[in-house]
């Protein structure tokens, strides 16, 4: 029987330090066993447990898209015990990945719609994956206009900048990068993300939004979106809560009757409106 607690063994292939403060690192993992990559079949928006032997597990959103073959990407903020240990690990080290867990963004349901993707700070990871997946030739034609609005505290904190720079040159996606503060060498948009969204957000007709970021960003952006005519059913958030099993069993990540791990982490604002704000 398939054991959902058993991680797939992986090797750290590459570690990229993302920011000047050295708190964010992006890990590139390769599966040790041939065949595991096929079994680990996922879509953007899902997460996995990064499993460090002897230390524990942390649930992290998958930053790569399944259209990128041969590896998985995760960006980890150094915060707690496991993430700190992970930051000191080296390329070549062996650990585990357990997943994929949770539900992806509702791509199937949103076919034919315009998509507005809004990311604040390092919450960009699964949204970057969504961008890569949507721009894949196999998927792009199924969706209308795609806009990606991405803001961080400073330009150096904008992750995956190479991808976004490349997308800026394309005509099938509109990219808006913004920095909260003015910075040397930054000639892009400047301001608080919700304010920027107010300025550049495309019309709400036949459109859905994926929104991820710090709680304060979500709160104010949501207001901006509602004023712009978006409906609660069309705004999708990705929640996070403390998790252990990731399978809807260990009991700690619930928001009302829903488990963020098993039933989420992607919920529409409408789905959340009848539930306690325990996240």
């Amino acid at each position, binding site marked *: 029987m398939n054991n959902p*607690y058993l991680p797939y063994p992986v090797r750290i292939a590459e570690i990229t330090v993302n920011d000047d403060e050295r708190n964010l690192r992006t890990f590139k993992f390769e599966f040790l066993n041939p065949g595991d990559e096929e079994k680990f079949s996922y879509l953007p928006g899902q997460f996995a447990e990064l499993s460090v032997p002897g230390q524990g597990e942390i649930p992290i959103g998958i930053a790569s898209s399944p259209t990128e073959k041969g590896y998985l990407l995760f960006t980890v903020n150094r915060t707690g015990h496991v993430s700190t240990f992970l930051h000191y690990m080296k390329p070549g080290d062996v650990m585990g990945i357990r997943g994929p867990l949770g539900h992806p963004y509702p791509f199937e349901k949103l076919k034919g719609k315009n998509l507005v993707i809004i990311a604040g700070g390092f919450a960009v990871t699964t949204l970057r994956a969504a961008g890569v997946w949507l721009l894949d030739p196999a998927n792009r034609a199924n969706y209308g206009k795609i806009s990606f609005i991405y803001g961080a505290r400073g330009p150096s904190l904008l992750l995956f900048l190479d991808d976004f720079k490349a997308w800026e040159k394309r005509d099938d996606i509109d990219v808006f990068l913004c920095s909260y503060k003015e910075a040397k060498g930054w000639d892009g948009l400047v301001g608080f993300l919700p304010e920027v969204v107010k300025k550049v957000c495309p019309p709400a007709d036949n459109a859905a939004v994926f929104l991820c970021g710090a709680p304060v960003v979500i709160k104010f952006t949501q207001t901006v979106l509602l004023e712009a005519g978006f409906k609660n059913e069309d705004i999708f958030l990705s929640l996070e809560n403390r998790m252990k099993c990731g*399978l*809807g069993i260990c*009991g700690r990540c619930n928001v009302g009757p829903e488990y963020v791990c098993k039933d989420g982490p992607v919920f529409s604002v409408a789905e959340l409106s009848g*539930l306690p704000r*325990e996240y």
Partner: protein
Amino acid sequence: MTEYIVKESNLTEFFQAVSQNRTLLSPVGQGEKCRLEPTTPDKIKLDFANTHLSPKASFFPQTERLLAFHKDKSLPNSNVYQDLGDKAQDCVLFGLRPCDAKGLTVANKVFQNDRFVDPYWKGKYEKALKIGLACLKPSPQCFCAAVGGSPFGEQGLDVLAYVKEGGLGLKTLTEAGEALIKSTKAESASLSNEIQKLEQEAYGLQKAEKDSYKVITERDLMEVYNDPHWPFTAENCLNCGVCTFFCPTCHCFDIQDEQSEKGGVRMRNWDTCMSSLFTLHASGHNPRPTKVERVRQRFMHKLKYIPIKQDGVFGCTGCGRCVVMCPVNIDIRDVAAKMCRPTQTAKV
């Protein structure tokens, strides 16, 4: 399915037959020492109220090793977690009270949910034949009737037994239960009238009114959640977690890694929603920061969230253990009564 009787003089022989090639688990010891554990056919007790601890530990041990790894780089698979497997053996449980058997079915739907199957639970749960023992004399803390149960409840059981004059009455409920009893020398009988009569009598002995908390499942979730009584309800709570420890349906656990220089294990341990660490984010944010949210979570989970997910079945089975064990006398029956209707002020 079918009904049988076992004469008092044949009881040991009967228990020998049902535990053929299986471990026999049954309540042993008295009072606070009454516990479910392996025993022999001649030591089966029929005169106990209920076990001190719920039977969940037989399927979901308080501490359980799940995976292990080694660090010896000269061997293959160093630093790769391996499944320790589930060493569950065939067993037969005799003497499960109907509330506890029902509690196991509630936990079973969590451990084997719509997306994932927990192999460690499944192995143990499905290798156990469950013979219940109906309650003829409920304890003062019993209220199974109020939460949709019955002293003769059949959920989660393969066979329901009850003590009758001169022996045991048996009603088989599943094919496995029928096969098990057929393999013994139990004599078939017609008991449905007697069972019905005894069940009504046992209902009458309970203080709880039948289905009196059902109205909670019909109320709006946020209305129950936002009722002003919660701070008052939680006021005395010490967040000690004894309620979750004894509860037959509390299934929450923590996963921890332990290691030495040679290797390590990943294990799970019972956890409790009464602890602030339970939900604390690494960032310091806590979605349930005070005991008010935590106490509310426990009662909402039992009486509102689980019914939403499990077709109206309560996550509380009315066993009354938390009522007896709570050091500050928080009584789930009082809380459930408050949850039945809107409260105007905090003090009720």
